[in-house]
């Protein structure tokens, strides 16, 4: 493999952050369903809430978490939040992205520059495949609800 390609260990850094976040919040970890290479049709249109972080430094690209509204509602319930307004839903998806960011910083150190999470409600075509021809897509399942983590990242050094 090219030494600048993302390897399994690095993929796990991002995924572990998400699965452990759900475990800590609800006592039930998210399960990885599959991992594959993304194409234009990789992200279901129904995954309409996205939390995205952009990364620079030794790596370049972005990582984002997308899911349906129902998953975020369950997440808010677990957090004891009854207000399921749009802003709270976006905050919830941003919090997941923030957790990915924190774990990445812990693992890769200060050489990784990570943006504050950007939250999006709606289609994600405009942010797809900024760096890789085929980004890594990991589908996860939490309490019967599906979500994806898209890793569109390349190592520069």
């Amino acid at each position: 493999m090219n030494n600048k390609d993302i390897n399994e260990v690095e993929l796990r850094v991002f995924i572990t952050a998400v699965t452990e976040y759900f475990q800590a919040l609800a006592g039930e970890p998210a399960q990885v369903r599959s991992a594959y290479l993304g194409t234009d049709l990789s992200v279901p249109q129904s995954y309409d809430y996205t939390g995205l972080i952009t990364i620079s430094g030794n790596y370049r690209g972005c990582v984002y978490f997308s899911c349906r509204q129902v998953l975020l509602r369950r997440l808010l319930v677990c957090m004891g939040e009854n207000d399921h307004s749009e802003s709270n839903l976006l905050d919830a998806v941003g919090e997941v992205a923030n957790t990915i960011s924190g774990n990445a910083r812990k693992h890769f150190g200060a050489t990784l520059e990570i943006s504050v999470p950007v939250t999006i409600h709606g289609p994600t075509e405009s942010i797809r495949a900024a760096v890789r021809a085929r980004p890594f897509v990991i589908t996860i399942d939490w309490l019967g609800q599906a979500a994806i983590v898209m890793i569109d990242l390349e190592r520069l050094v």
Partner: protein
Amino acid sequence: MERTKQPKRRRAERYRRIIIAIGLFIVLDLIVLAATLFLSHQILEDVATVNLAGRQRMLSQRIAKTIYAAEAEQSTAQTANGTLSELKAATALFDSTLRGFTVGGGTLGVNGQELRIKALEGEAPRNILRRAAILWTPYVALIDPLTGEITPAAETIRKASEYSKINSNKLLDLMNQLTAALEENVADKTDILRLVQIVGVVLALANFAFIVFKLIGRLRAQDALVKQQQRENAQIFATIRDGLFLLHPDGMIGSQMSASLPTVIGKRVAPGDDFLSVLETLVPEKEHEAAKEYISLLFGDRVKESLVASLNPLSQLELRAADGGGDVGKEADSSASRFVSLQFSRVKGEKNEMGVRQTTHLLVTVHDVSERVRLIQAVKDAEMRAQEEIKGLLDLLELEPAVSRRFLNDTEQSLDAINDALRGAGQTRDYPSTISEIFRRVHHLKGEAAAHSLSLFETLAHRFENILSELRDRPNLKGEDLLAIPPHLEDIYSRTAKLRSLAERMTSKDAHLTQNAASGHEFGYMLEALAEKVAINQKKKVRVTADVPDFGSLPDSKATMLRDIAIQLVRNAVVHGIEATNERVISSKTESGNIHVTLKRLEADKFEFAVRDDGRGVIPDHIRESLVKSGRYSRAEADSLDERTLVMKLFEPGISTSPTVDSDAGRGVGLDVVAEKVKIMGAQIRLGSRPNIYTQFSVTFSSAA
């Protein structure tokens, strides 16, 4: 040598003032001491003189008293000798003392011993002595007769008595004055002595104060310097990014070490720790032993430092993570190996009795070279990858473009299918079946790569199989385990795309050259070169003649397809038609096989392209064997086919009459490609052949689009 003199000179310069001050202090003390001794001695002499002067007063009174006593005795006619003797002694003592005071000489001291006295100096004493001499000279003249006779005459006594009555008190007064004058002289000298002592002590104290002030100043400056050096050392040790410390001969880490040392080695460590024990937890036993021996060698002083440095076994050390608790790792990339380089420099002490400076410590620097090692490894990996890709590209170029394109297409389709299987696993969650399916596809890909001698793809598929094999054997396979697959899949995807891009660029360049050939000559040359290359591979001899003058007039689309057809047919003629040299000789043919390529214009836009060889011809039984070997036909079915049908089977994919598979034939794709192109061109193909005489493929086509 010069270097050692410089600090000594600077040190002497620094202490010059203090040394001068101490010297001055000693000189002052000596001067005061000498002055005191000198003046004391003089005072002692003067005090003796004062005592003598005081005795003169007493003697003047004793002389008068004894004269009066002698006169009284004489009146009673009983003059005693004792009185006269006393007069004589007192007179003699007074006289010798007065003479001594005046001109110097001997007399008896107050203790009765002989004494030398100096003539008195100074105006006042000399004046008193002169006046005393005026009184004493007649006085002694009157006394002398009294002391010379046993019974002096009454008249003599009377004259002496009268003179004494008049002058005795005057003489006493003069002796008093003399005593006072001498006492005043002593007092003056005592004052001088006191003054000298006071001045000396004051100067000495001032000098002492100067020395103390200078010393305290110097000590303060030195203290400040030491503090500054300590502060700077602390700053250096706190700031330096490398591990730095002094190693004692007993293996102990010195009292100071850089703050970064624990971070660099990834383990908590403190001054006073045993270095080798720390190292033991970080490196394998073999390297720990090597470190132990090397450090011992460095302290040994028997081997030159430059030579020892070249033997350093610790210049690149891979550290393992310390056992729980004590490790201080960088949080970043904790999974990566860490490499450090340990460098040692000898620290020499003072010279011993043999004049040799022995090693007292080792200065140890620990650099984190993980990044350097990683970069070297990255460069090696990149070189290996580039070599693999060049080899892959060359392997691809060895193949016919149509074959290589088909392989790359097939590969990408396989990869797409693998990716689809991964994506589908999210729904089915039947992970063992997914892995098995991917395994089959990768294995097929590996087989195809091997069949086409594409070692790069074979290697990539093999590595992929290793991962899959490990996953297949894993119990309770989970979705998370699939994370290992996409990186490998992506690697093959990206390499396939890259090779496709490179190969297309290179073959399109060849095609461009061919298409741009102004005449059929270059097309003919290309076919000759191809035939020659294939003949060398097949260990045959061939001669190609090309008569294709109208090739340049064909439209590009037709020329490109005809070129592909010609390549396959010429290759086919060399591999299948032309016999081996010895076979041709037995058949009474020339050693070199002949291949004739022609392009004839039949009508305005109608052409016939033909490739004819004088080889063994098409042998129906060979085709039957191939059909049976392919597994598509039974022996009986193959035997039932007529010759025309048999010949048409040659154009089916997967049918080859070649007994072996190599880069030129055996995979049954050559005539398959020809048939495909003929179909696209809307052409017709005919095959004519006579065993052991010739084989000719003729393609008739229209140049119109």
